[in-house]
């Protein structure tokens, strides 16, 4: 059994309450104080057209800036800071759109497993619908991210329809594409776990890419791993944490750190360095 570092001990205490942590963050994103601070980007996937949105969506901002041929220093800078510190911990613990999918995943039905390589579509989404299509064709292109985003459909279009209907105002119906996307999304969250995050999320692509560089880091103690495969069972997103940690597909829910031998731990790149040095010293006399 490996000695657990302080961060890992803290993670193990929080893990049973992960859904509650995600839900608590709704108090940040859903604008309970009606402050609507849309001059600031949030680090999560939450549509700024939503009547309940405290901050601006970074992906929407990047796409709109790209369409206007401007460089979004604030949005990119903020994402580099957050991703460089935490990586995709945001996906696993903070994002409201992830919470919605995690809640759907609680419904006890058999789920379809999807191959890991399908996660590379997220980079295609990021480059295509967020950067290149807006840059070359503007915001009116049918594949502009905000036009095909299920978060926009669920968090903005649906609430605005309900709001207009209850107030007796004329309803502005979303187009057929948007309605289809909402329907497909609502079906797929019951077919497989976190389909948007694992297959298409452009923000998840950025955070996932930074997993290998971020200060927060997953550490695998090779010599303590018994190859029991428990971490693979714990990873509901189909990862193989015992083979490779800090991959871009990992959503860092940190469930795998509950494995029996404790070979997988939440750590930081600075802490990993501290623990590796004494091990080398111990091994050297045997060599």
């Amino acid at each position, binding site marked *: 059994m490996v000695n657990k570092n302080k961060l890992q001990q803290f993670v193990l205490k929080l893990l049973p309450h992960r859904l509650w942590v995600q839900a608590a963050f709704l108090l940040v994103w859903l604008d309970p104080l009606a402050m609507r601070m849309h001059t600031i980007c949030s680090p999560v996937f939450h549509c700024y057209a939503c009547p309940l949105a405290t901050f601006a969506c970074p992906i929407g*901002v990047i796409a709109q800036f790209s369409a*206007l041929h*401007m460089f979004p*220093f*604030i949005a990119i800078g903020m994402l580099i*800071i957050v991703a460089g510190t935490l990586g995709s911990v945001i996906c696993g613990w903070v994002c409201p759109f992830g919470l919605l999918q995690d809640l759907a995943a609680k419904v006890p039905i058999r789920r379809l497993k999807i191959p890991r390589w399908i996660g590379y579509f997220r980079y295609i989404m990021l480059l295509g619908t967020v950067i290149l299509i807006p840059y070359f064709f503007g*915001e009116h292109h049918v594949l502009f991210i905000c036009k095909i985003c299920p978060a926009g459909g669920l968090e903005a279009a649906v609430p605005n329809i309900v709001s207009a209907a209850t107030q007796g105002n004329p309803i502005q119906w979303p187009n057929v594409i948007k309605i289809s996307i909402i329907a497909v999304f609502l079906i797929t969250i019951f077919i497989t776990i976190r389909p948007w995050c694992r297959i298409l999320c452009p923000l998840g692509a950025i955070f996932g890419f930074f997993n290998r560089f*971020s200060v927060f*880091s997953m550490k695998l103690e090779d010599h303590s791993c018994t190859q029991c495969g428990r971490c693979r069972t714990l990873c509901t997103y189909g990862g193989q944490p015992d083979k490779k940690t800090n991959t871009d597909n990992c959503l860092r829910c940190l469930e795998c750190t509950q494995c029996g031998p404790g070979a997988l731990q939440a750590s930081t*790149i600075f802490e990993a360095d501290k623990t590796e040095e004494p091990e080398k010293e111990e091994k050297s006399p045997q060599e």
Partner: protein
Amino acid sequence: MNKKQITAIVLLGLGLSMFLYGYSLHVLPVYSENNDQGFATAESVLIKEVSIGGLERKPDGTLHKTYTGAPPKACPT
């Protein structure tokens, strides 16, 4: 320090520099809908404008507001 730590520190420095530059120094001229006068507009304000579909770039390369008076409530997309 190992390579990972140096990479992380460089990235965080880069991110912080971009963020601070965007917030404190980056301004762009935005013209009103009537094309009369351009105002130097901070990037944070531009973020708010794009979030409601309030900006467009004209063929001559200048940025213009899409509305006069009260801003739209939400993004049209």
